[in-house]
């Protein structure tokens, strides 16, 4: 964080807004992730110090919620829904196909840092199962072919607004 731009200032503003209240830990972690993209150890230590909370507590809360990321995610993020409906409808095969096609492991990123493959539990789109989210776009009734071509388009910088 040597090139430390204004991110720390933005975080400080959030901390002030919450009056450095320890009870606001979750909101602050949310904002910090929004500002930095992910929560690394230095950042967690910083937040723990600012709120006067034990580092182990902050770490515990951060790891409890799968929403919080502790590693730098890729430029583009593919999130697969592992809810029951999506699972039954074969989201596993799609995940395996993505892993194979882009040479990355579930939960990890590609070597060039362009793409991450993450998971979530039920996004509430069970009627459209299996559901995959590419960046902010939800793909319902997904198939291997559709998802892979959409990811390729995204990586290639082609904006695709059709669902």
């Amino acid at each position: 964080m040597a090139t430390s731009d204004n991110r720390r200032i933005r975080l400080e503003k959030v901390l002030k807004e919450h009056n450095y209240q320890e009870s606001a830990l979750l909101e602050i972690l949310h904002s910090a992730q929004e500002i930095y993209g992910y929560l690394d150890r230095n950042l967690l230590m910083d937040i723990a110090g600012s709120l006067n909370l034990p580092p182990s507590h902050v770490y515990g809360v951060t790891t409890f919620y799968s929403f919080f990321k502790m590693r730098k995610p890729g430029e583009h993020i593919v999130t697969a829904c592992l809810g029951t409906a999506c699972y039954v409808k074969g989201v596993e095969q799609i995940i395996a196909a993505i892993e194979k096609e882009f040479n990355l492991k579930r939960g990890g990123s590609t070597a060039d840092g362009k793409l991450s493959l993450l998971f979530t539990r039920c996004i509430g789109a069970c009627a459209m199962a299996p559901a995959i989210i590419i960046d902010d776009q939800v793909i319902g009734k997904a198939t291997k072919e559709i998802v892979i071509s959409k990811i390729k388009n995204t990586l290639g910088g082609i904006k695709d607004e059709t669902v």
Partner: protein
Amino acid sequence: MTLNPMITLKIDGVQISVPEGTTILKAAKDNGILIPTLCDLEGLTPYGGCRLCLVEVTGSPKLFPACITPASPGMEVTTNSDRLKDYRRTAVQMLMAERVHICAVCVANDHCELQALANQLGVDHVALERNFTREQIDSSHDFLVIDRNRCILCTRCIRICDQIEGVHTLDLKLRSKNTEVIMDLDESWGNSCSCTSCRKCAKVCPVGAIYIEGEPITQTKNRDVAEFITARRNRK
């Protein structure tokens, strides 16, 4: 200290009077009725995690964890029915199936609350499928060792570190099957900057998960330490 008004309830058919606000567990214990528990420890806040102190209350089909349920007037509590024994046997087996509990090679053999409870309940084998991952043993600290394979996640060490010692070095990370006791930001114990090496965690660990290297377990264990310190602090 102001005394709460006394209330009367029945535990296992015995009429008992306790101050209002007392938990069922404490009320029973003070009157010589022992309800099994692995996470509760006098002097620390109740946690309600091990589910071994579940009791029946007449008039409700639900089971109540005695350590966090306050006694109320006229309550009729059963602490040792066949149904409860059955539940407890299952709970003990689940704890054992979740990690590696091999008494013969454990540092806490014969001084283990889980082992004692298993004996008491007649659990002579684990009927459930073992479901554990290999956890890390951390012996980087000068003398304190944590073997997470034996941890039952009772959080006694975490609570005593926070509430009695006051440093909160220990906490839990992740959840469900992956839950583990950590030091600071998942540091190795030797590198933990906040740990004061006070040994209280080792003293209260109900099993052999935290122990002191080279010290006989009988010398380490002192499960009354929290109660003792709390009583001293409240003396004035």
